[in-house]
């Protein structure tokens, strides 16, 4: 069902956790449909210095959350915004068709976190 890469990220997810007083927090999904991803970012300049996630969901949800943090940690915001749900799925060696549109929300959550960071910064 899942690629080895998915299983690896599910079994040993990278960057699990929360960042207290994170610069940005993004959440996608809802418990009704069985997936919630929350991504925390700390940003210095335009670099994503730290990123952590918490996910309630299936194997694909956990793995996409995990790999997206790995893909953008230390990268620029511009690079992070280029990451899409599609490139996340590709980085995992593909996802089962059903999971492509239901549990593949990690890039969206990441973008929401960045948006949150911008929103906070503009307010200040």
């Amino acid at each position, binding site marked *: 069902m*899942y690629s080895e890469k998915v*299983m690896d990220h*599910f*079994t040993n*997810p990278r960057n*699990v956790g*929360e960042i207290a007083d994170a610069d940005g927090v993004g*959440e996608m999904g809802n*418990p*009704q*449909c*069985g*997936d*919630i*991803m*929350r991504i925390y970012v700390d940003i210095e300049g335009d670099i994503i210095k730290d990123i952590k996630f*918490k*996910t*309630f*969901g*299936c*194997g*694909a*949800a*956990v793995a996409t959350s995990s790999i997206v943090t790995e893909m953008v940690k230390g990268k620029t915001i511009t690079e992070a915004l280029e990451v899409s749900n599609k490139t996340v799925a590709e980085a995992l060696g593909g996802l089962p068709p*059903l*999971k492509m549109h*239901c*549990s593949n929300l990690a890039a969206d959550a990441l973008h929401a976190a960045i948006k949150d960071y911008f929103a906070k910064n503009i307010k200040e």
Partner: protein
Amino acid sequence: MRKIYLDHSATTPVDEEVAEIIRIYYTEKYGNPSSIHSFGREAKKALEEARLRVASLIGAKPEEIIFTSGGTEADNLAILGVAGAGQSKGGHLIISAIEHHAVLETAEYLAKMGYELTILPVNAEGIVELDSVGKALRPDTILVSVMHANNEVGAIQPIEEIGRIVREHGAVFHVDAVQTVGKIPVDVEKLGVDLLTMSAHKIYGPKGVGALYIRKGVRISSLLHGGSQEKKRRSGTENTPGIIGFGKACQLAAQRMTEEAEKLKKLRDMLLNGIVERIDCVKINGPLGDLRLPNNVNVSINFVEGESLLLSLDMLGIAASSGSACTSGSLDPSHVLLAMGLSHEVAHGSLRFSLGRQNTVEDIDHVLEHLPEIVERLRAMSPLYHQAAKKK
């Protein structure tokens, strides 16, 4: 790695004795039972013996048993068959909210074709309440279909009582007994049913074989047209090896049922109690005690999602199932859990262990040893758990 199979409600291993008899009818006694030569007659004879064995397990007469390609076909045949035999193209159907998809979707198909459909609610334990049946019945009700025990939460339904109500009314009464036949006593006379669905692969028989009991005198139209097999009620070359295997499985089930049920109930309660003791924020789904299938354990583990639980268990060699949407191929979690009033969120975190003949106390200990750490790991990852902890 040690493998522990705890998904017997999904399917069971074929008993070695059953497998051997099937092999013989595949490779040596392979005649087509419609043929008049010795190969055919030999197959025909064994086929009829199998029919007798299947009938005996449910207190039916052999001529009341039609073999099908499984429980799904038997459910379809029952529901479409009653509708097709009716004079008018229409009428009213009643099913329960916790029926298997084979009943649910067939009834919904008929609803699309113009039949009216009433879906009976269940209580929080997953049991149909008797007064709802009486209220739902209408003069034009042609069929009532309520399963004997639910495959997800193991809730045994008051079939005998429902049968009495339906009989008084005169509608045809269909019971999907796929999960009870061979596990608890099933007697078509005592239960007062007209049509009853069975499936071989849930009782250590082969996949792709089932049966529909059709009470003498009940008219149904057939689904498959063609040869004149099964007294013209189910065409197609009979799967003789499979049917003979089914017969054997029924015979073995009859012999072992009482003892096995006792054993399974002990293991079931060990597992249920163990989970509740070791993990917090857990809800048992379905009734306790004698209203529960001897082999069913179903719990909702809050703040975690079912597929993640399954994958984690699987990595330890433990096979279970879940009512999570992720495992059903749809976006919604189990319709059964929702009908019982669970929230989507809680339903997503449900886990079913269905025990079987080979399971041991060690298997249960193994699950109880590892499940708490799995839950802990997933909860640590879950945004919901943290929130809940904070709220406390």
